């Protein structure tokens, strides 16, 4: 749930999603759900010559399970807040 | 409710003896017995991790101390502590007497 919340705070920011098939897509994060499925707008594929079929695609839905990494805009991530929230979630997890 | 229930077994009789270690007992008994001991953790990739088992959880996530990474017989890495994600684990083997 914590990571889901982080992604929600990053909506309308530009992120780069790297898929497990090595395709990297940069775009504006429009929405995310609890499975970390991601909707991107105004997308641009990193290596267009290698993925010519993606050239006409302007927006996409990415299934969470095919994601390897998401590069986040560091200036919009409060690392101290993240660590505190992580400790709180870990403590809540330990109770049950 | 009204069915005839057998009398409860006498409670003060001796409890079942503890299973002799390493020769019988459930998988859980094995895992309990092996915590704090030297173990070999083999991953599905074939890589072995040898170290002292700190603890593990129900997903078989594992914390190891003094870990050596072995790839087909040669040490490829050493770590003070390691967390191994349980889905990668093929088996845990005791590397010393229990």
């Amino acid at each position: 749930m914590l990571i889901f919340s982080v992604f929600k705070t990053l909506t309308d920011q530009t992120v780069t999603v790297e898929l497990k098939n090595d395709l990297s897509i940069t775009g504006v994060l429009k929405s995310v759900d609890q499975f970390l499925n991601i909707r991107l707008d105004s997308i641009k594929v990193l290596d267009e010559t290698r993925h010519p079929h993606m050239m006409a695609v302007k927006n996409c839905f990415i299934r969470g399970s095919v994601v390897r990494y998401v590069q986040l805009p560091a200036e919009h991530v409060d690392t101290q807040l993240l660590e505190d929230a992580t400790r709180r979630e870990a403590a809540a997890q330990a109770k049950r | 409710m009204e069915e005839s229930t057998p009398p409860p077994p006498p409670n003060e009789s001796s409890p079942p003896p503890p299973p002799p270690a390493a020769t019988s007992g459930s998988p859980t008994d094995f895992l309990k017995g092996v915590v704090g001991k030297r173990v070999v953790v083999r991953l599905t990739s074939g890589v072995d991790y040898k170290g002292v088992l700190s603890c593990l959880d129900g997903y078989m996530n594992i914390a190891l101390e003094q870990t050596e990474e072995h790839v087909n017989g040669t040490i490829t890495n050493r770590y003070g502590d390691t967390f191994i994600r349980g889905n990668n684990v093929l088996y845990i083997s005791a590397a010393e007497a229990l």
Partner: protein
Amino acid sequence: MDPSSSGIQEPFDLIRLSLSERVFVKLRGDRELSGILHAYDGHMNLILSDVEETIMIVDEEGQGAVNIAKRKMNMLFVRGDGVILVSPPSRT
């Protein structure tokens, strides 16, 4: 109790104690990361900053010669299903 354990009751404690520290992460696909850990969850989804990724590319024809590619990333979410192991900095 277990005498050798240093106050760790469950594996995730090891990760919790590594928050805001540099960790080593081994991933599927012959990838390794080094980065500062800021968040994780029960799936081992991670958020790391100041990340260096190392990719080992084994050249099949070249008698198993290993090429290494490195790159840096500022702030990175790592999906937990690719994680094999996480090693915190050695605590002494």
